[in-house]
């Protein structure tokens, strides 16, 4: 059997009262809650006692609502929304009990309501008296639904409200903690709880926010953006550890709050004959470990910037989008000449002869020029503050290397940009 509570002004209180009797609660409409009372008979007693118990608990909460008990959810809803006080519809007697309900109180389309009005039908009892086949022929599925409602035969499962899960955990510490180790133990416990919530709801986390309340009552916040949504405790905790090692809280911590932003997890179909690739979660963790060692911007993927400026690229933590570079097979089987760039370019002292480099002296690069090609002049971004201009030379030196030199035409300074290899 099902019970329905109706009070348009108190949806949350109804849901709470219904939830205290059954985990299966449907909020049919604002102010209308239906829940299953199957099994309460052995615990409380017959339907009259169950209704009395619901009424008693409602009164304790100061809730004044209509209550109806019936064999089907729709019958319970109809009785609760149309009859004041407590109504018990005995199983098999729905047509009789619900018959006096006017059709104005039954949810249906306006077109159907108009048809019933034109036919002179005013109550559910009038509809129940009609032949069902004829009704279906004239009014199709919706007409038949109202007929089954009128007869108390409309059966359906409850549309349960999904449980509201919070992905936020907070814990206060007995003593302010300065060391990272004990703090991570607490964070591990909180993260473990959050990961269990994620698993239970088949979700993964895209962002992790750690809010640390410090000893001086100020708040220290760290936000971890995860390129790959994750739901496993171990990599998440390791990421938090690496981040806090790189950015430790400035004062002892007295409370920890962790919050995850849930998203649907990644679904990927692998292929038997596709080349192996690093597992994204693991790759992200590996990169985080390396970044903690070499610095934030020194590990990741290089993305070329659409400009002629030399050495123009940016580092990204996730692979750049497809399409920024071609993947057509190389036209030539021969290798391209490699280039090893010196960052920053080596400032050089260059002696010239006939306006051509004759001798180069720079840290690690010194020698007479045996061959030189140039100058190749280029410039760009002259319409911005970051204008650049250069004269390039390809030179072979007596030290055995083949280098690219460039000269700033404004300052006249020379630099060794790199080595052809």
């Amino acid at each position, binding site marked *: 059997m099902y019970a329905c509570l109706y009070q348009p002004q108190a949806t949350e209180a109804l849901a709470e009262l219904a939830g205290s009797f059954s985990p299966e609660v449907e909020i049919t409409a604002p102010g209308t809650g239906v829940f299953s009372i199957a099994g309460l008979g052995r615990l409380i007693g017959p339907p009259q006692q169950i209704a009395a118990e619901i009424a008693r608990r409602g009164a304790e909460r100061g809730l004044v609502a209509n209550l109806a008990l019936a064999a089907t959810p729709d019958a319970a809803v109809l009785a609760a929304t149309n009859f004041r006080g407590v109504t018990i519809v005995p199983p098999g007697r729905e047509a009789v009990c619900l018959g006096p309900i006017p059709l104005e109180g039954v949810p249906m389309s306006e077109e159907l309501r108009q048809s019933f009005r034109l036919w002179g039908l005013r109550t559910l009892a009038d509809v129940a008296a009609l032949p069902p086949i004829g009704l279906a022929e004239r009014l199709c599925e919706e007409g038949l639904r109202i007929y089954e409602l009128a007869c108390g035969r409309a059966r359906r499962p409850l549309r349960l409200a999904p449980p509201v899960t919070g992905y936020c955990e907070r814990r206060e510490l007995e003593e302010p903690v300065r060391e990272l180790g004990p703090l991570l133990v607490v964070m591990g416990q909180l993260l473990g709880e959050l990961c269990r919530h994620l698993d239970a709801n088949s979700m993964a986390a895209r962002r992790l926010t750690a809010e640390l309340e410090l000893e001086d009552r100020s708040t220290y916040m760290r936000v971890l953006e995860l390129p790959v949504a994750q739901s496993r405790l171990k990599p998440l905790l390791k990421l938090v550890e690496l981040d806090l090692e790189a950015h430790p809280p400035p004062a002892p911590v007295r409370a920890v709050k962790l919050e995850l932003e849930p998203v649907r997890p990644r679904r990927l179909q692998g292929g038997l004959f*596709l*080349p*192996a*690739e*690093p*597992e994204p979660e*693991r*790759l992200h963790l*590996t*990169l985080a*470990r*390396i970044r903690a*060692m*070499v*610095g934030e911007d*020194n*590990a*990741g*993927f*290089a*993305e*070329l910037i659409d400009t002629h400026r*030399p*050495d*123009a*690229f940016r*580092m990204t933590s996730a*692979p*750049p*989008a*497809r399409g*920024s*570079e071609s*993947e057509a097979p*190389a036209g030539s*089987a*021969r*290798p*391209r*000449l*490699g*280039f*090893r*760039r010196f*960052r920053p370019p080596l400032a050089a002292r260059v002696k010239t002869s*006939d306006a051509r480099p004759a001798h180069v002296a720079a840290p*690690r690069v010194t020698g007479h020029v045996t*061959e*030189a*090609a140039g100058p190749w002049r280029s410039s760009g971004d002259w319409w911005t503050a970051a204008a650049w201009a250069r004269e390039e030379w*390809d030179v*072979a030196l007596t*030290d*055995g*290397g*083949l280098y690219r030199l460039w000269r700033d035409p404004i300052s006249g300074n020379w630099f060794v940009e*790199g*080595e*052809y*290899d």
Partner: protein
Amino acid sequence: MAAPLLAPPLSAVSPTWQDYLPLALLSPCLPGLPRGGLSTVFGARSSGQTAFRDAVLAAATRRGEHAALADLGDHFDPQAAAQAGVVLRRLVWVRGGGNIEHALKAADLLLHGGGFGVVCLDLGEAPAPELNRIPISYWFRFRAAVQHTPTVFLLMSRQPLAVSCAACRIEFRRRGILWSGEPPFRLLRGLRIEALARKPGPERPLRWEAEAE
């Protein structure tokens, strides 16, 4: 009576892509760089190592594999590599900033992370005294980490390293610079490179030319 089960003679076993990263540059001496093994390349300045590295990275990334480069001196040039055919979005680049310990640890983490077709450790510009101070146990550790994986571990340096651990060892020499035109209208065309495959098997020379853009 059943015939005894014998392993086929070594020469009869043709190498497959599971055993090697195919590389046309190394044929006919080698079918490619061995997977699950440590390959070392070394040579003087402008000897063609970088062209070879870019060719290896391009071969792997164009097959759909992911590659990683632990770059000690931050010498990698993404523009030149992209022109050589490297698919940059499949290449993890670690800039070591000249710290040899960081570069070694990064290579170790990448190898243990797994899933890469190629992991390259470029120790190119490191001075000889620093290279000589690297404990030999590192090379054994790398060899153990890469063993039984489909990864090619490529070690680049100016001098031979990890001699006993390497499954493949190639020395690079420059045989000449290709110029066109007469002074003062010269144009750099490329490098003429000689590679000596010293391991596995007897020493065999390979010659090719690396073209400028």
